[in-house]
């Protein structure tokens, strides 16, 4: 759809005041679409490049303006809200009150499914929010179509299920069972048994990279590419057993919470963690990431929930009062925390998280996992008696993009999307703390020559290595000790030798004439040839 953009700089003085307000609003939205600062063209000396980049920057400005206008006028739905007049507090409003005020379609999203036999339930949603996977501790797996409340498939695996996760769409899911993790198809057939990982405690899927990440009971982190089954990385974290693992959706980094109170962040290409943060004095109970990747919420056993800024790695806010066993951020930035049989939802007003809504269930219903459903104002709660769903207005993104995640997907669209996802699959090397660094160029540095000290240090390391090497014991009379020592001496001499080009400047290759030698060094008969300075 083409938006006709006219340069209305001249008309600004003549616009009525409410139009000017709209302009200010649009400018704020535009900033989001510009995705950062423009290039600094003043420092360029190449005129041709300068004009090309200037016209490119203009084009970006125009497209940001068009996108801002589309967001203001053309999006089909608007976000949910809950507003009270004065005396009423939003966190005292019960779900039953909401049910009376809201339309029928939404009220269908509030329910409790009671399954007392099969243990606390863990939940997972697909990216579009259409399908839900519920896994009970005692082995019950259920795949549900949330749009029609249709049970697609349920199986009972008859052993402990610790975690469940969808792969890239609803056709495949993974379950972490007693001894190994398994991958199932949509109709419940077991497709793969992932034996390499051992007994898995937590499973998460990185969508852009097609990597299934898991942490097992020994504290090892495994990354496996599910398109061809290769184990990309298995990392020994060295911090002991943990079952707190979350993925940062913004950059694909995996965060583990440990019993010492540290949160470490990992990427598959390195054996050492990217970041180690001391978050709590005691064990970390749960971790959650804001979708924009800048905020992280952690909760510890000392009954505090802390909000961290990941750009500066600083604490932004502490919320006292309850020990949150599970945390989850919604698409719009609301934070849900579940403790005991009580779920509290915190919303951010001007950067500060404060009580927004709450939901308390019957005492027997111990909350195991909370998770917001994407693109809906719904919070899914998995607890010891089954799972529930409650309405949290303002938590979901109202407008979906069909090319990113489509809750109304047909099977043909789903197949096409799978192919496009595979074509756009990112290699595991692209996981980094700041994903915007890809495509940026580093200023080329001229290869610096190693200093004398560095050369000598390297030499010493080589000598040590040569001295420490184990000699092979030869047979058939060839193993004489004199020969062995001779060989060892030869190796040490080789390590001490320098390469012909490596010596620093003046020393190598300078011819020394006899006259240059100091007179004191020369024997008496040659003293008359010493150079007189």
């Amino acid at each position, binding site marked *: 759809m083409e938006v006709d953009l006219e340069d209305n700089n001249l008309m600004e003085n003549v616009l009525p005041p409410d139009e000017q307000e709209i302009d200010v609003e649009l400018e704020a939205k535009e900033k989001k*679409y510009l995705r950062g600062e423009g290039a600094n063209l003043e420092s360029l000396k190449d005129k041709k490049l300068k004009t090309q980049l200037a016209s490119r920057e203009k084009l970006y400005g125009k497209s940001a303006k068009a996108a801002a206008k589309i967001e203001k006028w053309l999006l089909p739905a608007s976000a949910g809200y809950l507003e009270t007049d004065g005396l009423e507090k939003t966190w005292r409003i019960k779900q039953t*009150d909401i049910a009376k005020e809201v339309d029928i379609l939404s009220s269908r999203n509030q329910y409790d499914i009671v399954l007392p036999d099969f243990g606390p339930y863990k939940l997972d949603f697909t990216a579009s929010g259409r399908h839900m996977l519920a896994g009970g501790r005692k082995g019950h797996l259920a795949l549900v179509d949330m749009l029609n409340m249709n049970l697609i498939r349920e199986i009972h695996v008859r052993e402990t299920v610790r975690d469940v996760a969808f792969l890239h769409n609803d056709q495949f899911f993974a379950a972490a069972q007693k001894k190994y993790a398994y991958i199932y198809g949509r109709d419940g057939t077991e497709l793969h048994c992932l034996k390499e990982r051992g007994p898995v405690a937590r499973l998460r899927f990185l969508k852009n990279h097609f990597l299934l990440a898991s942490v097992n009971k020994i504290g090892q982190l495994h990354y496996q590419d599910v398109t061809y089954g290769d184990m990309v990385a298995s990392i020994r974290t060295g911090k002991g057993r943990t079952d707190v693992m979350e993925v940062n959706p913004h950059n694909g980094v995996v965060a583990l919470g440990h019993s010492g109170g540290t949160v470490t962040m990992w990427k598959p290409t390195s054996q050492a963690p990217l970041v180690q943060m001391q978050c709590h004095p005691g064990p970390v109970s749960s971790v959650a990431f804001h979708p924009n990747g800048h905020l992280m919420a952690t909760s510890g056993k000392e009954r505090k929930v802390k909000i961290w800024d990941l750009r500066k790695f600083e604490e932004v806010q502490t919320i006292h009062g309850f020990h949150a066993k599970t945390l989850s951020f919604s698409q719009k930035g609301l934070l849900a925390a579940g403790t005991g049989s009580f779920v509290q939802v915190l919303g951010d007003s001007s950067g500060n998280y404060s009580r927004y809504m709450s939901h308390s269930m019957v005492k027997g219903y111990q909350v195991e996992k909370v998770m917001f459903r994407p693109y809906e104002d719904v919070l899914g709660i998995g607890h010891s008696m089954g799972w529930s769903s409650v309405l949290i207005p303002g938590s979901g993104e109202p407008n979906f993009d069909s090319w990113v995640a489509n809750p109304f997907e047909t099977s043909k669209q789903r197949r096409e999307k799978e192919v496009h996802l595979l074509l756009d699959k990112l290699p595991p090397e692209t996981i980094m703390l700041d994903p915007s660094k890809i495509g940026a160029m580093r200023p080329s540095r001229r290869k610096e020559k190693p200093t004398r000290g560095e050369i000598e240090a390297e030499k010493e390391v080589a000598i040590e290595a040569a001295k420490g090497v184990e000699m092979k014991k030869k047979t058939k009379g060839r193993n004489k000790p004199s020969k062995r020592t001779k060989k060892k001496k030869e190796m040490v001499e080789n390590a001490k030798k320098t390469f012909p080009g490596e010596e620093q400047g003046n020393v190598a290759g300078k011819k020394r004439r006899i006259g240059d030698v100091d007179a004191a060094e020369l024997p008496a008969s040659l003293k008359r040839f010493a150079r007189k300075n």
Partner: protein
Amino acid sequence: MRIKTISRSVDEFTRERSQDLQRVFHNFDPSLRPMEKAVEYQRALTAAKLEKIFARPFVGAMDGHRDGISCMAKNPNYLKGIFSASMDGDIRLWDIATRRTVCQFPGHQGAVRGLTVSTDGNVLVSCGIDSTVRLWNVPRPSLEDSDLSSEKSAEPSAVYVCKNALLAVDHQFEGELFATSGAQIDIWNHNRSQPVHSFKPGNDSVISVRFNPGEPDILAVSSNDRRMIIYDIRMSSAAREIRMQTKTNSIAWNPMEPMNFTGANEDGNCYSFDGRKNEEAKCVHKDHVSAVMDIDFSPTGREFVTGSYDRSVRIFPYNGGHSREIYHTKRMQRVFCVKYSSDATYVISGSDDTNLRLWKAKASEQLGVILPREQKKHEYNEAVKNRYKHLPEIKRIVRHRHLPKPIYKAIAESRAVNNAKKRKDDRRKASSAPGTIVTKPLRTRRIINEREVE
């Protein structure tokens, strides 16, 4: 209490009948798309690889001449046809779609050195070393002529004899005059058997002539004494002349910017000049290792194709110093003439091995009817590849061309020679007083002098 929740009715978001299109909704918010830069980079990499997979530039060869091809001419009114002439006097009209000869024009004794068509497409003018200029009537292609096996042959409508061998000919744009060159430059009218005007630029022969497409009375010629001269035929002498270090084999005017012209030089470079300001070349296009024999601009004015003595055809951007594409085959020998087709899709090269070869201008282009979605996808691939083509992984793929060994070795050798020279010059400059040694840019170095004649 005011409350609203998201509630989507299925009817609004799905199609009504199975014959409707599926509904698509957009939200351009960047927060919905994590890692979009990495995904874009991945798409650029895939696009670069796909472009290389689909790069099949050679379409076909037109076989029929019995001696090396000396010149070609394209008919401005008829897209499918091209005229070519060979060193034994054989002139043919080819149908590019079927790659067959439609009509032959026998008559010249000896090599035909120049070929041109009038702007209305009716008259073909040819000149050769037998000192004759022949005018032919171009046969109109008609629907009954589907019988391609019979090759027609035509008689010249006029034969004019001159004193010396003729080396080039060009027709005026939207006019009745054409110019031939040999020992001197003659301006002819179709009906007169003697030239209307004559210009004698010096004692050396004039090897190529080109009329300006924008100003029909302006003419650029290049002579054997290394000069490029611009004439206005309404005046009696030259307007401007540039003398370079080596001779220019061919000149072409930019059809979209008619004040600029580019000369294909004997030293392997092409020099683009602004016709109004000749002190320095606007751009030097360097990539050929041997003399550049012919040059032709694309009708878009954004690219030109050159054929060189080093058996390769290169396509350059109009303002870029290096070629964006090189075409070569084992069987293609010295390339003497090239033409860019009038729809900017094909490049035709005529070479010493008696073949005309048809190449695609964009090697990985999909020919034929393209659906709008395919077109958008191609444009997206092109744009995303251009955004990241400076990064090493993608640059390596995009830049990679297989070069024939002689050209590869010649480039390596010239690079070594130039580096050594540059190092010596830098040292000489560094060890002399600042300002005493001034390096002239390449744009001016090759020009010996230029003057404007009143």
